[in-house]
């Protein structure tokens, strides 16, 4: 049994921690959000430092890391609420491509994902798909060589800046069947695609993408026709592990900020931290954070080692993280009083990111239901 990070993992964690400390104070982050999106400079730095290549095999041009390495990185990103599209492009878009793509398809895209010159996005969610990634109505109608795609994909993370989309669409079966879902990698400038980007409450960017008779050929299809769900689901599981790690980083900031604030602020002639009701509340926040971290380790190791119980662990993790995120976030805000509800302190910003994470890839209730099923 060993929960220690490897030397490489510790190095990259330290290096991201420094990057966050140097670049991601609230004021700098707010300036990036105001400009709409993320910092091209930071993105370039991340690529140069090799961070974008971490979770890819050496044949694919990466460093041969796995979900545990991504976890180490995302936890640090979470401490700074980093805005760059690591999750969208590296974990999700390229995560689906690396699993389902052919050697040629991977060679065409992964090197530029890893060097940061190109971004991918994963377009899987729809207006009425709820929390189910297998609920797909965007349709692929057979043509001579491939399919014509019609429909709308929603809440596509960083779709506005992506160079290409990994898109799920239905080529057979009923609306909620896992079989009959096909994946294709489609350049963003292909005829018939309209992208509407918009900001989300956590400072990130999302988008809605309309496919109006978009032609895809055999060269665009990732893997077998009708067999795309496994790769899609695996990419989403990676996404869940990644945002859970981000949430753990954010929760650490929240509980520590709260402890510090109650020691500084005096009410009723005492530091607030003298009041037992607040002491016990902060202990509860800390316990939730530690429990989240344990569940994160458990699920990440289970997935990374290809364990039989991996999927169930992912459901358990997403459920537990969602509950903890609200508990820690609400209590951090409440304990900071009025200041906690303003844009001026960072606690509210961390809570907003946690709120979005709770709903992403299926919410707390959904994953408990899947866990129990």
């Amino acid at each position: 049994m060993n929960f220690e990070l490897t030397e490489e993992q510790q190095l990259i964690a330290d290096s991201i921690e420094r990057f966050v400390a140097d670049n991601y104070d609230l004021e700098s982050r707010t300036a990036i959000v105001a400009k709409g999106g993320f910092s091209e400079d930071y993105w370039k730095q991340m690529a140069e430092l090799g961070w974008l290549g971490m979770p890819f095999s050496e044949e694919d041009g990466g460093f041969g890391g796995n979900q545990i390495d991504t976890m180490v990185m995302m936890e640090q990103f979470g401490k700074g609420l980093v805005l760059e599209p690591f999750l969208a492009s590296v974990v999700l878009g390229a995560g689906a491509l690396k699993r389902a793509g052919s050697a040629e398809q991977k060679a065409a895209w992964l090197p530029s994902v890893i060097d940061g010159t190109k971004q991918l996005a994963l377009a899987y969610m729809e207006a009425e798909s709820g929390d189910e990634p297998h609920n797909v109505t965007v349709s692929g109608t057979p043509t001579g060589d491939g399919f014509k795609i019609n429909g709308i994909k929603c809440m596509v993370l960083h779709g506005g800046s992506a160079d290409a989309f990994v898109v799920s669409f239905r080529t057979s079966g009923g609306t909620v069947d896992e079989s009959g879902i096909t994946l294709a990698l489609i350049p963003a400038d292909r005829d018939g695609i309209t992208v509407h980007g918009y900001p989300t409450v956590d400072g990130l960017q999302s988008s809605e993408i309309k496919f109006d008779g978009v032609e895809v050929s055999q060269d665009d299809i990732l893997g077998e026709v009708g067999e795309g769900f496994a790769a899609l689901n695996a990419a989403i599981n990676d996404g869940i592990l990644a945002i859970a790690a981000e949430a753990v980083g954010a929760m650490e900031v929240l509980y520590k900020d709260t402890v510090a604030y109650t020691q500084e602020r005096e009410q009723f002639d005492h530091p607030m931290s003298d009041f037992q009701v607040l002491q016990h509340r902060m202990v509860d926040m800390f316990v939730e954070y530690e429990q989240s971290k344990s569940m994160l380790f458990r699920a990440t190791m289970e997935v990374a080692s290809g364990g039989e119980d991996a999927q169930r662990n992912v459901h358990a993790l997403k459920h537990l993280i969602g509950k903890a995120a609200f508990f820690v976030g609400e209590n951090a805000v409440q304990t900071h009083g009025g200041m906690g509800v303003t844009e001026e302190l960072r606690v509210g910003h961390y809570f907003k990111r946690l709120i979005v994470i709770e709903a992403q890839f299926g919410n707390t209730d959904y994953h408990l239901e899947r866990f129990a099923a």
Partner: protein
Amino acid sequence: MDIELTKEDLEFEAEVKAFLEENAYKDGDAEKWRMGWFEKAREKGGWDVPKWPVKFGGPGWTPNQHYVWQRATASASTPWDLPFGLSMLAPVLMAYGSEEQQERFLPDIRARKVNWCQGYSEPGAGSDLASLKTKAELSEDGTYYTVNGQKIWTTMAHIADWIFCLTRTSSDGIKQEGITFLLFPMKQDGVEIKPIITLGGSHTVNSVFFTDVKVPVENRVGEEGKGWTYAKGLLEHERSGIAGISNSIVALEGLKEKARGVKRGNGSLMDVPSFKSKIAALEVDLMAVEYTELRSLATASAGAAPGPESSILKLKGTEIQQRIQKLTMEAGGQFSAAWAGFNSGPDFARGGTGGYMNSRYYTIYGGASEVQKDIITKKVLGIKSSK
């Protein structure tokens, strides 16, 4: 014990509903409609000031009538109104103000001509409100005070004409003593307002700075140094108002309607057991708190001031409002994260996270939940120390 509506109550209910329907906003100048609405309510016999005593023009309703009115207005088209003058300052003036002050301020409050704001919290005086430091110094000739200091979380200060303000006139003795209750105009030199943007992206609260603001002594309510006593009574009125039970009942119905419109499988979100049971649990709590409010209403109508039960209402009422916001956000799913702009999610989802974030404020302002619990600890459970 009997809460059946009598024949007279039912007739009253029909009359209220007819009034609300007849005077609902249709089109045209909204402000003109608003002023007209209050005028017509006044002509009904004090319906513009339901909670004011008969002596000051109120309707003198029974608890049942108040209940009927609250329920009916919560779901009707009624004009916007602010509680600060009407429900918070007015009772203080009626109880502690001079006759001259009552004649000077109450008519404009009633006519909605003057908007008031509340100068209570300060950066260093939140839950511990009595530690406030905004200083009011009496001039040597005893004719005016000079006010210096800062207030924070001042709701609607940016549209207010006047402020009722707690100031410190003495630092001797315990801090609850030496607080004086002053009234003065907001639109004058020496009053500076800075907006505070909340996490939901909206501007309702402000920081307000006072630099050498001169306030004539005739604008002092009651005695110098007794302001805390007056303010405490006022906070009880504020708490009952913040609970917003009737609005929550309407909001919960609205939430169910929204959830029924969100497709899940072959049905709607309201068919998803986990969501449905959260809605049901919320409804049960709301049913109980509605009766807690009625019990408090009955006490108040029997002539007693709102007491510690207003702390229960504030605690539970705000928690329920937050749960409604949270479930609304949840019903919007991932789409609630979108600030605005183009997306195919349900219409109500847009800004859903903002509504929830702003609702976190409900358990903080008007005396945080922790403060309400301290009040109940001391006043109801009779426990003296609560460190």
